[in-house]
């Protein structure tokens, strides 16, 4: 039921006219211009009546109850809590999460995989990701874990997807062949091109890492043309030239490039401030406009932030949480604790059981109850809450929510881009329909 003005958002679709987002269910409707103007200034009661009159807002998608003991569907294994790079802002504080470096032992990985696949029924889908530190520094364990997971999944007819996020420095031919064989989704962290990257992501000794990674990516792309390789760019005040980065990385052979602002670093370095976030929004929109131009001409442009946003808006994704952390997804520490996600690895306050004993239901329930977006401030009164979900738990807990204006600005743009493209290029959303199937 529509109750406050925060339950809808009016946005401009440009040439396709004014549009309305209903927060509940993330429903998008084209509306009459005069209606939009009247709704914009209407008191909540009047707004509710106006929406009801044209048949909107009568169906509830999200209720107040948290999900009941959601089953585990995805794990990330922190296989190597150590790293050969020394990024200025690393949440894992150089890969070791502020503790002595260590690798995951086989019994931990074995138990984690058996718990993940043992908990689902045949026909269901699970995801297994390898993170670090730098995960490829423990490739022996990754190989063994992947082979076991694939074997167990095949025996049980469970569909499994593998993913790895790496700094790319150790990604040679043998590693690439292995990842391609198991159909990995590969994400490489790169923060720009050349010196821009090097100053943010130097090797521990201080030398730049870009040239080495670049050579690795080119070789990998040549050897495995169809392996999905994505770049993840952490945006700090020192690498705000998004469009240039995006184009250069796509040219290098990445299928897609995604940007994510650095909001909280344990070191406090390179965090984005309000001004920086404004610049980021402008730069994101600039990339988005290029995406729209290319899409209109029938070309693909691997700007993954917008690709993802468009798919989610098309499906009407609505969720009271920002992600599956602590619900269907957990991060496994090198010693086998289940953390709410990979970013909480090593954080005793957000440990929810272990791979041996399973999920601690009491802490999981408390987490899901406490972390609902409707219980967060200022989220409760924000129209974007079911698209955003309240923002990364880790960042919200450690730094609060400094990026709300940025997120709303970006979603407002993405909504407009969605309605424009859904009119101009409806077939772009066919694949999403198919995926939903």
């Amino acid at each position, binding site marked *: 039921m529509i109750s406050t003005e925060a339950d809808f958002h009016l946005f401009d679709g440009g040439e396709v006219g004014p549009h309305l987002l209903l927060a509940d269910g993330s429903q998008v409707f084209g509306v009459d211009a005069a209606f939009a103007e009247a709704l914009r200034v209407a008191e909540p009661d009047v707004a509710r009546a106006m929406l009801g009159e044209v048949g909107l807002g009568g169906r509830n998608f999200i209720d107040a109850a948290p999900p009941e003991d959601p089953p585990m569907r995805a794990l990330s294994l922190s296989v190597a809590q150590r790293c050969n790079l020394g990024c200025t802002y690393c949440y894992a504080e150089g890969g070791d999460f502020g503790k002595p470096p260590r690798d995951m032992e086989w019994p931990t990985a074995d138990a984690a995989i058996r718990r993940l696949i043992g908990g689902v029924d045949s026909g269901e889908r699970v995801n297994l990701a390898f993170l670090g530190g730098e995960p490829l520094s423990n490739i022996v364990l990754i190989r063994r874990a992947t082979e076991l997971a694939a074997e167990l999944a095949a025996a049980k007819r469970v569909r499994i997807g593998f993913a790895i996020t790496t700094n790319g420095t150790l990604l040679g031919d043998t590693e690439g062949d292995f990842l391609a064989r198991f159909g990995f989704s590969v994400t490489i962290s790169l923060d720009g091109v050349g010196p821009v990257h090097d100053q943010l992501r130097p090797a521990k000794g201080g030398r730049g890492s870009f040239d080495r990674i670049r050579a690795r990516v080119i070789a990998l792309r040549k050897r495995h043309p169809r392996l999905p390789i994505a770049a993840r760019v952490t945006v700090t005040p020192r690498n705000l030239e998004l469009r240039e980065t995006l184009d250069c990385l796509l040219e290098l052979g990445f299928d897609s490039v995604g940007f994510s602002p650095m909001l909280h670093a344990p070191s406090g370095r390179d965090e984005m401030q309000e001004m920086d976030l404004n610049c980021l929004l402008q730069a994101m929109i600039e990339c988005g406009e290029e995406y729209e131009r290319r899409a*209109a001409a029938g070309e693909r442009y691997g700007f993954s932030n917008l690709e993802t946003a468009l798919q989610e808006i098309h499906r009407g994704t609505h969720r009271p949480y920002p992600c599956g952390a602590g619900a269907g997804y957990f991060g496994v520490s090198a010693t086998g604790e289940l953390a709410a996600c990979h970013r909480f690895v090593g954080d005793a306050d957000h440990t929810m059981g272990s791979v041996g004993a399973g999920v601690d239901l009491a802490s999981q329930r408390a987490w899901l109850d406490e972390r609902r977006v409707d219980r967060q401030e200022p989220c409760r009164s924000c129209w974007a809450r079911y698209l955003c979900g309240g923002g990364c738990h880790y960042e919200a807990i450690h730094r609060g929510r400094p990026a709300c204006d940025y997120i709303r600005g970006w979603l407002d743009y993405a909504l407009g881009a969605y309605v424009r493209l859904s009119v101009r290029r409806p077939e772009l959303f066919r694949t999403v329909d198919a995926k939903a199937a």
Partner: protein
Amino acid sequence: MNREPWTPEPRNLTARAAYLVPGNPAITRPEDAVANCYPGLELDVRNLDRRFFPGLVFEFVARDDTGDPYIEPTRYGARLSYVDQYADPDISDCPGLSDELSNNAGTLGTGEWYIEWIEQDGRRLSMLEARAGETLPMDGLFVWRLIRGLRPKAPVTLCLHQRDAQSADVIFNGIRRNFTDPVTGVISLAYQPGEMLQSLCSPWQHDFRDCYCHYWASNHPDIVFGELLPGEARLPDGQPADPLQATTRLDWLRAERSPAMAGWTQDSFALNRPFQYDAFQINAAWRQLNIVINNVEIGDDYTPPGQEAAEPFKDPAELAEALCKRLAPLEMALAFEYLYARSSLLTDEEARSRPGDQAAKDRAAVCVIYARHFLLLTAASEMLHLRWANELLWRLYQEKLVPGNYVPVLTPARDIPQPPSTARRPLEMRRLEPQTLQDFIDIERPSGAIDGAYARVIATLRSDPRYPTQMQQVAERIANDGMGHERHFLDMRAVLRRMPGESSYLRELKRADPGCTAIGTAIGHFRNIKSELDTAFRSGADRDLPAMGKSLNAARDLMDKLLAETDRLASIGVGFPYDAL
């Protein structure tokens, strides 16, 4: 507030699933249906299976009842109704199917084709059965039942066979379509509005009532307002002017149908029941039950709302200004844009001479023939509208509704509206790239800029008896004639999107400078056309019809010459600058 009626446009999947069309009862979604299997009360589920295979639409031909004698074996089964290779959005889920359908569309367009067998998961289902020692086609109802059992979203191979001819069988590989989105329940966009309801009929309505299933009311209006006949007085909001008629509620199932005898509906089911059709009476008289829109019964005539709502121009001078400054110039500008876009397309010979495999080139050739033909047709139609807009104008002078003398309007508009926004774009000579085509679709969209403007002209001409009836007829012809343009462009877009790239159908074309010597001949033709049209329109204004006909014919001959010449120029990369002359 007196606003144009509008309804929200559900865009994304959740909106499409949740939106309840105002006026529909709360239980009009398929998931609310309690209906029996088929034909069904809310929808006929066979309509889903008709499109089980993307790109093909079938009809299940069966006996009226499976107990009836089996007497027309060659008619029974799943008969191919038509190939829908352009508009079906699910074809992209089946790699290669689009090309296969295009390659076979011609073959399948001739004669009658039936499904001979279907294969899924390694099992082949034959659509034939042994009957008295012979192998004969199964009844369509049984074929439908087999198709109903196919696994959704899984690969399917099907064989089409022509029973009365010797053509080779045609085999397609695809999938069994997912009829509804498993997440949102939204029905595939392949199904057109109204398609789920076709083959339903009113005889079933008594089931609703006689089984006391009033909660099944999705297709069943109970209480309605009577039909408003053409010519009966209406209030500005469309309601009847007669207050009694506006407030008299009728029982939709009433047995006495004459307007004079229609009485108030009673307060309860029991009180109304004696005056309703009985079950078997409905079976005979169901055609008498009216369609109901917005609670009002519709009789033989239905006038959609909207057109009447257009605001008339305040006087003949304002109408003349609109024709002279906006409408006639717009028609001319569009004709120029379409002609230029046409010249940017390869001819079929050129498409065939491009590198690539033969099948792709043949397909490209067919596509460019199609697109060139409809661009020419649409441009010619705009030229005709230019003449008619001029005719409307000269009639205003003839009738002395505006002072002064008529001067032909033969100058194109410099900018063109961009509906639905209020922005305008400049008149521009552009190749038929996707954006150009989109702009053509936008300007020709019904209720967009053009027919919206003519709706005002028509409203003006109807509002005042001083305007001759013929003027109204001319304006209506323009408005109606434009309806097909958007369809042509949408089809064109569907066709061209399936081409591998713009280079497979577009020429490298640059708009020439008006001073360029190469275009001298074309400029000569162009100027002569304008001069002939000027003479023709002036003759029309002077009521000298023979002279008008002579000049129009001369202009037509010159247009053929201009077309041939501009096409020759375009083949060497020179675009004729219609806009600069």
